[in-house]
């Protein structure tokens, strides 16, 4: 059963994130993927994440697809206008890449090409609406396509339960987001509040995929807290990292513990190790989900 059928039928999904290479050699990317080959339902491929230029996610998804992986292609609004977005989506579909995760994308000034023109011709709500149109067989301007797409689009959310963030999330759901992937969760309590809020606006909790970042050190925890929007690591977790004899193992244990706690509150989990997937399988085993 593929990722989109699992989402549709409410089966628990496991996904994991990989960055395309910053270069032409895909060996490292394939090695990273090989760690999780039979463990995850789909591999997310980031799109110039944090506005740092890398290989096209479309191409990376295609290469991984040839190796038998199911992928979820990230698509940001930062780098492409409405024509380029549509071309990319038609191309993805023709290559059998049907899962798309839509987001605005970090501002170029945050990345390694500070002076790049920020495009943002569409925002994530509008892009989701566009995908619905393509799925019905029409382009943005209403011209009929020679053949329609069959895209399963999802969106991202921070676990903020403030009114403004929820209104935007509601719009994403209205415009056809089939799944919602959250920013990394470190506190099951606030996650359950978030799930309750979005269930209230009519979104099935089985379609919420909880983000997990295995921590590596106290320092990296503090860095995430300070610099990444939507991540809030509670002091007791930071303390655990600080006092651990082996921080790496402690980070894995914390991640596994969170997965166990979140398991019944959502429809899946998404692992984002910064760097590689060496330990992903072990974490999932510790959590008892594989």
């Amino acid at each position: 059963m593929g990722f989109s059928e699992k989402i549709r039928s409410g089966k628990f999904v496991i996904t994991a994130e990989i960055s395309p290479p910053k270069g032409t050699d895909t060996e490292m990317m394939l090695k990273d993927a090989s760690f999780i080959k039979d463990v995850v339902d789909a591999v997310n491929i980031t799109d110039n994440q944090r506005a740092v230029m890398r290989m096209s996610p479309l191409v990376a998804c295609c290469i991984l697809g040839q190796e038998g992986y199911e992928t979820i292609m990230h698509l940001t609004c930062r780098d492409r206008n409405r024509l380029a977005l549509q071309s990319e989506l038609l191309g993805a579909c023709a290559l059998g890449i049907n899962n798309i995760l839509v987001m605005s994308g970090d501002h170029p000034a945050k990345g390694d090409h500070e002076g790049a023109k920020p495009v943002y011709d569409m925002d994530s709500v509008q892009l989701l609406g566009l995908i619905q149109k393509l799925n019905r067989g029409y382009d943005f301007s209403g011209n009929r396509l020679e053949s329609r797409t069959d895209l399963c689009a999802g969106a991202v959310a921070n676990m903020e339960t403030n009114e403004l963030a929820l209104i935007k999330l509601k719009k994403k759901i209205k415009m056809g987001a089939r799944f919602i992937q959250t920013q990394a969760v470190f506190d099951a309590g606030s996650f359950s509040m978030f799930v309750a809020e979005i269930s209230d606006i009519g979104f099935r909790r089985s379609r919420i995929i909880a983000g997990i970042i295995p921590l590596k050190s106290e320092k990296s925890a503090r860095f995430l807290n300070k610099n990444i929007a939507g991540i809030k690591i509670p002091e007791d977790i930071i303390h655990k990292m600080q006092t651990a004899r082996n921080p790496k193992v402690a980070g894995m244990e914390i991640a596994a513990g969170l997965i166990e706690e979140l398991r019944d509150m959502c429809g899946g989990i998404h692992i984002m190790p910064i760097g590689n997937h060496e330990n992903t399988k072990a974490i999932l085993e510790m959590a008892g989900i594989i």
Partner: protein
Amino acid sequence: MIISRQKKFREILRNLKEQNIFIIGCGKCATRLHVGGEPEVLEMEKGLKRAGKTIAGWTVLSSACSIPSWKEVLSQNPAIRESDALLVMSCGTGVAAISRFADIVYPALDTESLGGFSSDEIMEEQCNMCGECTVWMYGGICPIAQCAKGLLNGPCGGAVEGKCELDERPCAWDAIYEKLKKLGKLEYLEIIHEPRNHAKKLRGK
């Protein structure tokens, strides 16, 4: 009001190959912002002289962007004809207006955005001149101009402690939310906005 700032003096000097220069200031925005009024023009004259240039003369036009008659400007400033080049201390539109009549024109300012001046405070980047104003839906705070990504349907989620992910400025969407809340018009936030029609603002029409 058009917001502009002065170029670095050495940058102006680097471009300015000609010897005999006439300086033109602007009596409107550039004067207000203290980047192209009389004191700044005199300062520029001093600087250029120190750098070895000859100054044919100077003037501050009442507004550089709307010149009713170039003939009149010339009759009041005959030294323009003797100069090798004009250095214009106004926004880009002023430079463009003057360039229609004069041959060699250099800008002394960098034009940044469309802003305003309200109770002694300079307001930068208030409007992007999109060609179809919908700012009422956002409580008068334009997300096209004031959100770093120009997002129309709500915030990107990148703000950290209320600050835009781009830099120190506050997230525009927080301000929009607060304003609409105050006005009792939070329902405006529920409107799903289509992507902008950029054809409304054609270049080079």
